[in-house]
């Protein structure tokens, strides 16, 4: 069971990374969501095997008890990734309203400076010897 969960973690993470490397915002956001799921599932996997509920009085001395801490951590992480991904979707919508496009835009100033640099290089190479 633990191997199976670990496999799911790996598959989710790989798909997430693949989507993250695309140039359309919607895919990037889906990729991040998958990676967040994968990380949360990983927290559950590292908690070890399932067992009785860790409530005082609900288990005997010989019962194996589930580790509650990773579950608490995963819950917190789920809430956080939920909030941030919702915000990201809102921003992506805003971006679509402004540009009518889903592609990630380039940094204009950066491209301008790269162009300047190339022009400089060309001038230097073609200078009178």
């Amino acid at each position, binding site marked *: 069971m633990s191997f199976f969960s670990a496999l799911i973690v790996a598959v989710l993470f790989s798909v997430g990374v693949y989507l*993250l490397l695309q140039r359309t*915002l919607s895919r*990037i956001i889906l990729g*991040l969501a998958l*990676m*967040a799921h994968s*990380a*949360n599932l*990983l*927290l559950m*996997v*590292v*908690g070890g095997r399932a067992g009785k509920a860790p409530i005082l009085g609900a288990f005997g001395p010989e019962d194996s008890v589930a580790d509650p*801490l*990773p579950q608490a*951590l995963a819950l*917190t*992480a789920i809430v*956080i*990734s939920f*909030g*941030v*991904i919702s*915000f*990201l979707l809102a*921003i*992506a919508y*805003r*971006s679509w309203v*402004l*540009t009518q496009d889903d592609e*990630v*835009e380039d*940094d*204009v*100033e*950066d491209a301008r*400076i790269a162009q300047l*640099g190339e022009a400089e290089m060309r001038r230097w190479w073609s200078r009178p010897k």
Partner: protein
Amino acid sequence: MSVLLVLPIVLPLLAAALAIIAYNHRTLQRIVAVGALIAVVADSVFLLLAVERDGVQSVQMGGWPAPLGITLVVDMFSALMLVISMVTVLSVLIYAIGQPGVDQDQPVFHPVYLVMTAGVALSFTTGDLFNLFVAYEITLAASYVLITLGGRREQIRSGMTYIIINLLASTLFVVGIAWVYAATGTVNMADLAVKIAQLPSGTQTALSMFLLVVFGIKAAIFPLFFWLPDSYPTARMPVTAVFAGLLTKVGVYSIIRTQTLLFPQHRPSTILLVCAGLTMVIGVLGAIAQNDMKRILSFHIVSQIGYMILGLGLFSVAGVAGTVFFIFHQIPVKTALFLATGLVEQSTGSTALSKVGGMIRRTPLVAALFLLAALSLAGIPPLSGFVGKLGIIQAGLSAGEYAIIGVSLVVSLLTLFSMIKIWNGVFLGTAEDPTLRLAASEGETRLATPLLMRGATVALVGVTLAIALFAGTLFDLSERAAQGLLDPSAYIEKVLG
């Protein structure tokens, strides 16, 4: 005593709640925000005095003993960071109140700004790895709102990059925490310091490098810095200034905390030194290529992070002390530079070197403020940057790391070069774009900026001068912080009891 540790987190959060209630009462929001931050500054100064007198302070949340409960712990390093960052946050808040169109038009500015302050304070005080993740998320969630506040097109574009890269880093952080928990069964940092030491060295290296990548993205060290110069310059100036001063330093703080407490070393670390060198060189070369004040300064953030990692990478008391002092100086200096840039932008409407010119005649005060902060950044004696760099360089020489020290000296010169580039472009010369507001006010007329904006910048430059003036005392404190970092037995004993 323990209430002192909780207040820097609780006060801004309560004030944020009040500021939301007073959503449409700007004056009330301002009073609440400024009042809360003044109280937090006072509290952190008391905390520093308490740590100076009695050593490490800690408190267990909810009364559960460590390692079960969440620990807040403040040692000398945290206390120093807390004091300087809260002072900076307060001055930027006053600047933002003075700047037209920042908090007037945006009722969410004060609540979000206060939440970010609470997040920063929590990252400096927490003694729990997962709680550090929560602190990061509090800070980041607030910063996502701040960086896109206004919703202009280029803000959305760069804010998107910023959010995606930080969300990726946070996801990796969760993965890192899961692995640390799988290996040790705890997330309390003092407990981890004991338990990680018992792991096989291969596992230790894997965890250490993974956490270095996670915090490296936040701190913008080479090769993980590409998002920073792209995303910072588009936000409103007070927001850029506080991000520049604080957020990357929270990343550096976490690198220093985890690398010294969880994965202690006693020899210089080659990988950290190589990263430091490349961060410095590439950051400063990027800065030289730029033609806009905000972008030049943003690349310098990256470059200066290199010095901090260099001091840490030496893993000697002298080196780490240099780093602590350097961060302490860097937070107000970097913020002051951006605030001065904001004054230029406020009076002319642009920060492009080709458009603005001759500002020294029009706003001599701004020119003087920028010059002081810029020379301090470049490390000209007797300003504060010199003391920090001197400490790191001496430590590097005594450790025999000559190559990296040579690199750092060259980078220092190039820093001065690009500061002169700004000085010549913006403050000297006459090149003026007729489309700018500047041209409307004819001839030699001085340009006015709001009093609060100027006042806050003067105060912050004053802080950097005070750091230079009290460099001796502060360096002693930094040395004690470094001793506490490299020999964390007092920290561990205080938390685990």
